[in-house]
């Protein structure tokens, strides 16, 4: 799931007014835990998920896990 979030995102954290950074983030689904590189606010940790990622790779992995 890595890589879909663009490094040079125009988005800023509105609360902290910080530029977003790439970081390993924990993701959970159906009892499974894994780590992925995503973009987030370095201050408040709010994680950014693009539409492309959510409706693409993420959805695909969700469906795969659901059929396990």
């Amino acid at each position, binding site marked *: 799931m890595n890589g879909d979030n663009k490094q040079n995102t125009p*988005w*800023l954290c509105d*609360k902290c007014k910080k530029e*977003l950074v790439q970081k390993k*983030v924990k993701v*959970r689904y159906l009892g499974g835990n894994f780590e992925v590189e995503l973009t987030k606010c370095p201050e408040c940790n709010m994680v950014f998920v693009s539409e492309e990622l959510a*409706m693409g790779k993420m959805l695909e992995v969700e*469906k795969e896990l659901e059929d396990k």
Partner: protein
Amino acid sequence: MDLDKLLETSDICIYDEPPACTSCCPVHMDVIAFITEIEKGEFDKAYKVMEKRIPFARIIGSICDHPCEKVCVRSDSGGTVKISELEKAAVRYGYAPPKKAIPIPKKKGRVAVIGGGISGMTAAFDLDKKGYQVVMYEKSDRLGGKIWNYEGGLKKEVIEEEIQALMNKGIKVELNRFIDKKGLEGLIGEYDAVYLGTGQWEEELQIHPETFQVGNTSVFAGGKLSNKSCSVIFSASSGRRAAISIDRYIGKISMNASREREGSFETPLKYETEGIQPVEAVRKASDIYSKDESVREAGRCLKCRCRKCIESCSHLTHFNISPKSYMRQINQSERIILGTHYANKMINSCTMCRLCKEECFKDISMKDVIQETRESMVKRGKMPVSAHDFALKDMKFSNSKHFSMVRKQPGKAEYLFYPGCQLPASYPEYIGEIYKYLVSKINGNVGIYLGCCGAPADWAGRQDLMQENAEIIKETWEDTGKPVFILACSSCCSIFEKHLPEISFVSLWEIFAQYGLPHNNKVSPKHSLSVHDACATRHNKKIHDSIREIAVLSGYEIQELKYSKERTKCCGYGGLVYYANREQSADFVKHRIEESNNDLLVYCAMCKDLLVDAGKRTFHILDLIFAEDMESVALRKMPTLSERHRNRAQLKIRLLREIWGEEPDMELEKQMDFRMIIPEKVKQLMEDRYILMEDIEKVIDNAKKNKERFFNPQEKSYLARLRLDNVTYWVEYEEKDEDILVKSVYSHRMEIVEE
């Protein structure tokens, strides 16, 4: 889930059973494969199909007495398919000499074959192939026996060539050797087994009809000795079956195990003959069918195979699967512990309409199988959450304070009008009118009860939720004085029958039919409608009749569809397929629409919505009763998922105010302090992604209050997220003065840990 029972049911399915012709053929020639090749003009391949089963196919194919034709299903629709004539044609146009087989070592034992006719030749040929050393004894000076007597189609050279081929295999042939009873004694001592195919014998023999063993000796007898007839194909078959017995006898394996389907048998296959157009058999212009004549005659074959349920069901058609293999796949899926459950999507694409059972000769109900499977998946934690999540949340909404309520006149209620959840979502404006009608017509205390019967839970295999829901309904029923429920939704009817048998109910349509329509002054043009019956009540004749009565009372004429009443089809909503597999759902609608050009008449809100959404002019029975302008409702667009929520919520508020003069709880009318502008494009995304207006509002409300959002300075837009229950919703929006312009919405189920 009881998998043994499942496999037993799968065994009952006759999909894989051979057609009558093949099962009757003593050597079980694959007639359909054979005829299919001929139809394509591939005579060489057709001959290859014959060769697989028919010994000395070039000889027998020309002279077979074809018992198969007597049982051909085509016989009553223009005459039996001329299988034997087609075999002659395949021999003539498709014969090619067999490839040289690699000789295998003959180490399994020695067998004597007495008699060189067709049964002996077949036994010798098969035993040689199985690895036995075979010696043939023939009293005359050539093999072949009676086949030399055939005239016409069968040429002398062909017989000679085939016999030569047999001898070339290394089978030893002793000609001019007459074996009598005494000679046989000698051979018994010399060989591991003896096959007797002499046509006549000095004494009566005790031949076992299935194994062809004589008593319990090492002698096996076939041909005319066992068949008592001159049939060439039965002779060949007996030689073949005796060879199997000899192999088992020498190998000391059970003589009887699994041999039920050897020789001619009656197939369990049933084939629907209704509607078959008669076609006369093709006449041959000369002594044998020309290629062209063969192709045409082959075209008359019905390729008998039971596909009755598949043909009528869009789901089985979509997955191109027979219930037989469907059940086997479920069996496999149920046994997977680690690995992917590939059948999940299919299992969640059955509308559980039970048409298959109506169609099936064997009463197999995939609906029951799927119901059990889904329940088992839920129990084992293997049901994909996303398949039914939205529908289950919708049910929860309907049973929450936002919609659910019970009101009655003072005292014990005699009737409780229960419109269900989807009808009020699609037709909020009719509910109050119906209630007033009921109160005015029925003598007695009539109350109203809003909520969802639990059908979504039942379909999703969630028996926990289903039971919980049924309990609540039951309590309400007891609390209100055990009234008769008046049901307007067919799914409610079937849920009540299944889970609340103690509650008696009457369908709203029966009441309309019985008490008459509220304003009967409407004159409609002579207009004919076709009823698309609801699949959930396919066996409720009272409902079927009432609907037709109401239509006639309203001035319409009914033209029945091929699939109606107990054989009706599902619109594609049932079983929650609409949520689990939209493509599959669309198939159902499409097939249903293609059935007739007439406008349709339905009595389930979801049927109407799905049919209209696909462009079919469809009336709900309530349109006939209440609508002012029929043209405007014929194609009235279905409300969005968000509107369905709002319609229900507002109906409750309206009923409380207008009928009971109550001021609803403030909570119910709570409004956000911003207004949203949602472009059409985004509305469509919301439908496709199952995102509701109320979800979006919550995301934006949280973003505004807590600044939990991203900001794009170039576009001046915001992107906010909020996790609601098990889904994270994302909304991209712009603030335009006081308004919110929604630019996009999406969601994911994975949970992201923000730390």
